[in-house]
């Protein structure tokens, strides 16, 4: 097995549509068509309450995306630094990064959200959306760090040796030789983390952030249409993640050109 074929195992169980499966009867297509038809037909046949729910949540969808995109961007930066720290030979840097990963991975995201929002709120006042983004990226930065670490480690040490022997220093080796190759293996799991993060943003609804779920809960609490509301909420989330998982699967397909030869 050459270096270029190495892949990171996707461990979080998020199902990725098989890039090679182009048939119409794949699980992905069935799920997508089912979701879209339910999202269209339910409000058509019963505008009250299905249609009303859909009209109630669009600003929540915006907030969900806002939190997701801001968090993933921050988490990528944190993850890169952490990943480099985890493989660094600098004792201090290495220890700090490892400690961060250990601590964050050991605390449930929900608890972290409460902590950053309410516990730290006594000392530093951050607006709700900022608190949500900080908490999400702080948590996902640690996961991302592990992805980066695995990705960088998947590049054979021979590459580093060759680069060093050509006169590159450590940093140049990392930026010009290792990272450009590691990206290919890192991107698919990063995509998965992106989807996982999007789903986990539903947790920020406890911070009174008006995301999709909170908008739904507000609607349900006023109309008592629990079944209808949560059906629509689930379908909206499903539609978003289905589209995203397809995009990631396509990306993975493109990045796997070395295997397709």
């Amino acid at each position, binding site marked *: 097995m050459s270096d270029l074929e190495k892949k990171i195992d996707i461990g979080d169980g998020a199902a990725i549509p098989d890039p090679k499966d182009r048939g119409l009867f794949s699980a992905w297509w069935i799920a997508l068509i089912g979701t879209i038809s339910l999202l269209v037909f339910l409000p058509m046949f019963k505008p009250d309450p299905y249609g009303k729910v859909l009209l109630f949540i669009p600003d929540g969808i915006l907030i969900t995306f806002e939190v997701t995109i801001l968090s993933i961007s921050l988490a990528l930066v944190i993850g890169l630094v952490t990943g480099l720290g985890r493989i660094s030979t600098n004792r201090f840097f290495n220890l700090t990064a490892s400690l961060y990963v250990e601590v964050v991975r050991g605390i449930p995201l929900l608890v972290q959200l409460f902590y950053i929002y309410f516990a730290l709120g006594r000392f530093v*006042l951050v607006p709700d959306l900022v608190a949500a983004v900080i908490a999400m990226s702080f948590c996902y930065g640690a996961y991302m760090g592990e992805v980066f670490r695995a990705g960088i480690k998947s590049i054979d040490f021979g590459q580093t040796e060759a680069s060093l022997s050509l006169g590159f220093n450590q940093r140049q080796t990392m930026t010009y030789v290792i990272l450009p190759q590691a990206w290919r293996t890192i991107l698919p799991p990063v995509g998965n983390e992106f989807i996982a993060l999007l789903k986990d943003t539903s947790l920020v609804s406890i911070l*009174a952030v008006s995301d999709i779920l*909170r908008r739904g809960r507000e609607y349900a*609490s006023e109309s008592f249409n629990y079944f209808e509301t949560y059906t629509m909420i689930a379908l909206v989330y499903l539609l978003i993640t289905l589209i995203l998982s397809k995009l990631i699967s396509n990306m993975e397909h493109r990045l796997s050109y070395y295997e397709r030869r």
Partner: protein
Amino acid sequence: MLKKALLTLVALSVLCGSAWAETKIVFAVDATWPPMEFVNSQKEIVGFAIDFLKAAGKEAGFTPVFKNTSWDGIFAGLASGKYDAISSSVSITEARKKAMDFSAPYFTVQQALIVNKDSSVRSLADLKGKKVGGQIGTTGYFAIKAAEGLTPKSYDEIGLAMEDLNVGRISAVVCDDPVAANYALIKYKDTLKIAAVIKTGEVENYGFAVKKGNSKVLDLLNKGIAAVKAKGIDLELKKKWIGQ
């Protein structure tokens, strides 16, 4: 012979005993609403409504059992039969009456506006463009949503809204006045105050909610409420939990 008679008697008394044993009514309580219902430091659910129901149970012959339930799903749980009734400071509203049945009123409330101590706000109208918090699905939150020009923010628990007001993330909180008094006069007495009572036009009463058509539980409850009121126990409880 004597033995047999005795045994029969014992069996009878056991049977009668169980028949006489008071009916249990399971109440869902979101125990985050002091002083009406909350969890004390001994992890017991206590409060005005809890004592009220215990007294009503004594009068009407039922034993109330309290089940701590989060407010967000409390009405859904009633509809699906997870418990017999809700005792959670539920205001009787027309919209809710369509989804469930209510007992006779047991407490009258108004909506209070709570702000920071140094705030000059005197009414909801002064809060244009500001964030105002309330508990999700409560009449307080509905009042915020009905007001024009402000940003409503819904919380899972009223305590979380109070904390956000305390640190300054939001400008005001709206909730039932006994709860407002508990937070503004006791818990956060150095930082918060009650700015005003919001006039909604109609009298707002708490009632115990039961699943639509559950007249058996409803009759028992109404019998108990009437007896408690007739004996003046509710006034005693008011003194105990709310003061004056």
